């Protein structure tokens, strides 16, 4: 049984202009000890889906799903009191902005110790010992001196290490990391990613990495789900995803990376992600897809099987060619 089970999760927000569906029928299963990545651009619903798992969405959001469970426990109908026993203990989250995620009024030691006191009921001396151990594990030099430090006295990288130490405090089974390195410099990013992978290897904590950076995905994740406009459009293990993407969106994203460029001009994707008011009736990627036909415009695409990377597409790609397409070479000249 997977550690985290998400089946057909949808999230609707009440807005002044009517309901907006931010997450649309997304499924994901994460096994114990696995590193899964959720990739997407802004507005792809990747963060909102994971906030729904954590129960951190505001009142204006309505969460519905066929199944939403963690470690065998149903998270949908769970009472808030029960949820708080899980969140922060077995299920932890790291956010993008380490500087704004820490409470500026309390010391680092106090903030890490809070989870230890609430969830594990440790004594003051035990909390201190465990906090030192955690700060040491995340690579903070001279942890004894850092216990009394306030967040403003730390650099961005150090703050993110503290956030990771907090997430690790109760030895969680799963950590959800939402763009954990986006606000950091590259040399610090490398240190933090190494740290997350090392902690998984040592403690067996599963990791869901939410990111938009294909480089981070390639170097860190084992399995990847690609999101577009609230839907999961493809899911594959990392090597096959980069070798043979099955959804035209994934293929176009990878082709647009400067490091994969063959010429001076990059093959770009025309247009922008659809918003709340210009959602196409059929496939959401249809207006930007170079293989789109009338069928893509009118009819929502089916979910393909595992062999086609669960692509949400009428004509999933195999080795760059659309399968079942009336004119497989249609998109060629536009791409050239």
């Amino acid at each position, binding site marked *: 049984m997977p550690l985290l089970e998400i089946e057909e999760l949808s999230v609707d927000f009440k807005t002044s202009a009517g309901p907006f569906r931010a997450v649309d029928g997304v499924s994901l299963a994460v096994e114990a000890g696995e590193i899964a990545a959720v990739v997407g651009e802004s507005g792809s619903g990747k963060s909102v889906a994971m906030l729904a798992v954590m129960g951190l969405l505001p009142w204006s959001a309505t969460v519905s799903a066929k199944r939403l469970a963690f470690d065998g426990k149903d998270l949908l109908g769970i009472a808030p009191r029960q949820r708080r026993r899980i969140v922060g203990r077995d299920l932890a989250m790291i956010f993008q902005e380490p500087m704004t995620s820490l409470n500026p009024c309390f010391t680092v030691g106090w903030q890490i110790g809070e989870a230890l006191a609430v969830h594990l009921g440790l004594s003051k001396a035990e909390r201190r010992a465990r906090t030192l151990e955690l700060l040491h594990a995340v690579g903070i030099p001279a942890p004894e001196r850092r216990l009394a430090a306030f967040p403003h006295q730390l650099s961005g990288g150090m703050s993110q290490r503290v956030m990771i130490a907090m997430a690790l405090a109760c030895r969680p089974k799963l950590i959800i990391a939402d763009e954990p390195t986006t606000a950091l410099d590259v040399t610090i990013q490398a240190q933090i990613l190494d740290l997350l992978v090392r902690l998984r290897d040592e403690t067996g904590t599963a990791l869901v990495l939410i990111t*938009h950076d294909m480089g981070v995905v390639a170097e860190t994740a084992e399995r990847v789900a690609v999101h577009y406009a609230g839907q999961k459009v493809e899911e594959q293990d990392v090597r096959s995803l*980069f070798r043979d993407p099955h959804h035209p969106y994934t293929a176009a994203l990878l082709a647009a990376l400067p*490091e994969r460029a063959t010429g001076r001009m990059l*093959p770009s994707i025309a247009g922008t992600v659809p918003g709340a008011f210009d959602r196409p009736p059929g496939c959401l990627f249809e207006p930007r897809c170079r293989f789109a036909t009338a069928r893509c415009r009118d009819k929502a695409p089916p979910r393909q099987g595992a062999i086609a990377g669960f692509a949400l597409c009428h004509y999933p790609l195999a080795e760059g060619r659309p399968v079942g397409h009336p004119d497989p070479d249609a998109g060629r000249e536009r791409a050239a």
Partner: protein
Amino acid sequence: MSARPLLEAVGLAQRYVLPRRLFAPEAVVHAVAEASFTLEPGRTLAVVGESGCGKSTLARMVTMIEPPSGGRLLIDGADVAGADAATLKRLRGEVQIVFQDPYGSLNPRQTIGDALAEPLAINRPQTSRAERREAAAEMMRRVGLRPEYADRYPHMFSGGQRQRIAIARALMLRPRILVLDEPVSALDLSVRAQVLNLLIALQEEFGLAYLFISHDLSVVRHMADAVMVMYLGRVVEQAPREKLFAAPLHPYTRALLSATPVADPERPRARARLKGELPSPLAPPPGCAFNPRCPLAIAKCRVDRPALEWRGETRVACWVA
């Protein structure tokens, strides 16, 4: 290699004196020191480095937003320091800048047609309103925006479109030098390629010289002709693009390259991770500023600062490399 550089910086430096606290000694930050480079028409010089390395200070000096505290800045052969007001105004029109955040750099209460016409209204007051509107419409077409959008406000555009607007505005005075301060860092992946393509096309069309500031090495590798790597306010390596990526000399350049994630899961990972963090620019370490984090540091590195020296086509500041 072209004949005459459009812009020449010789030993450019910027120091900031911080407000003094009671009884504390005066604190000075050397944000940039001894930066020398040239910009040529149709070519791109990339500036790479992490936060606090001085790349944005460099941009402010090159765009003449701040006068340098040391060194010389020559634009089109004219020294900026001694220039009179009229010359300075002309030179400012030659150098324009595009900022990182297209959400913060456009006035939300100004239509984009007005935003584009404004540089002309200020710098070419002899033009008529109709001429300015026509010029704005023409530039919008050039950067791939529909001219009918001229009466819309910035919030009605996506991030990629806003960055097109910012680029269009920077080009209104037909500058010859464009400073691009992290121009695609705030953009989504699928839009990033569009904006990079636009920048390449505009450079070819107008023969622009780009000073391309970025922390993203895969973008720099695609865009730049030459690269300048900065660490804590100083240039540590300066080289043609192929040289820098094929044979980086400075240990910091090597560390940057190895830390940058590459979108290829099959690539064997060369782990040469840097330890530690950037030291405070207020109290840089003696000797080479990189020595506390450097895997190759020797005793000399902790005492003497290496100067930038030629090694073939590359210039590098390192005792060991």
